[in-house]
């Protein structure tokens, strides 16, 4: 073989080796991007759900898009978990309270319905409150609480709303306990 032939052959071998090295390097880079611990992959590892389901080999653009989706999903999952947690901490009481209030409202409405509708019921309550008020006012003036007063108040209280009843009892009972009004009989004061 001539010198020129030898030179040509060496150049061809060098090119072949170079191409081979380049191919191996490219393959290694691609594999490394797909499975290595680069920042994108760490983000995926931290992110739940969608990112963990990402295919093992992605281009940089695809990987970036996946990370964005994963981050969005992670935020959404975290918010959902926090909401679920806070619901677990206070949910039963709130739910029970709401159910209790709803049940009380339903009872009230059913009672109104059975007793002639809300307007009539409201008028009846107002009349009972006025009657009770008059009995208590008279007792406070007389400084004396009689058995008849007790009977009248008992009847009135039965028809009053809770708020009306509380307002009335908060005037009468403390006056009795302070000694400003004296019961004239033995027994419950209403």
């Amino acid at each position, binding site marked *: 073989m001539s010198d020129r032939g030898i030179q040509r052959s060496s150049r061809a071998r060098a090119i072949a080796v170079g191409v081979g090295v380049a191919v191996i390097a490219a393959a290694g880079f691609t594999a490394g991007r797909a499975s290595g611990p680069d920042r994108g992959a760490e983000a995926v590892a931290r992110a739940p759900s969608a990112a963990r389901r990402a295919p093992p080999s992605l281009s940089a653009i695809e990987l970036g898009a996946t990370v964005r989706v994963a981050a969005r999903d992670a935020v959404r999952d975290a918010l959902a978990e926090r909401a679920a947690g806070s619901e677990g901490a206070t949910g039963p009481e709130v739910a029970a309270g709401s159910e209790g209030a709803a049940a009380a409202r339903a009872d009230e409405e059913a009672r109104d319905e059975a007793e002639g509708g809300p307007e009539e019921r409201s008028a009846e309550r107002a009349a009972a409150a006025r009657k009770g008020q008059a009995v208590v006012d008279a007792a406070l003036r007389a400084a004396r609480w009689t058995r008849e007063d007790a009977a009248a108040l008992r009847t009135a209280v039965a028809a009053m709303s809770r708020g009306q009843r509380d307002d009335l009892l908060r005037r009468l009972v403390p006056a009795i306990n*302070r*000694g400003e009004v004296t019961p004239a009989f033995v027994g419950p004061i209403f």
Partner: protein
Amino acid sequence: MRAVRKHIVALAVVAAVGGAGAVAHAGLKSSRPTTVSKSGASGWADGILGSARNGGGAYEYLACGLQSYSTGDLFGFCYANDAAGQFAYCYTDAPTMIEAIQSVSGDSAVYFEWNGNGECTMFSMGNGSMDPPKLP
């Protein structure tokens, strides 16, 4: 005749010894007057139902009870009057307190407190062997 007399004496001795034994083995018996203590519109009351009835003065009494209405409202209440004629009353619609008031029996000891609105803020009851039963 002498034999009969001996027999009677023997019976009397047995009865006396038996009686003394019964006294020696009786448990503690206690009694206390109904007390009403006020500070303005609030205060507390304490007493034993049996004591109030048996040994109290003419004014002394103590009671607890419940009132139920067709509206569904349920109240518990207690009231007391001490020997000096001081009267106190409290009411509650708190379910746990109502439950406790329900457990008062005829010979219970009772203690309760009330606030400036006349609402029961504390209720306590107990039944003890030392507490006297109500006599007719």
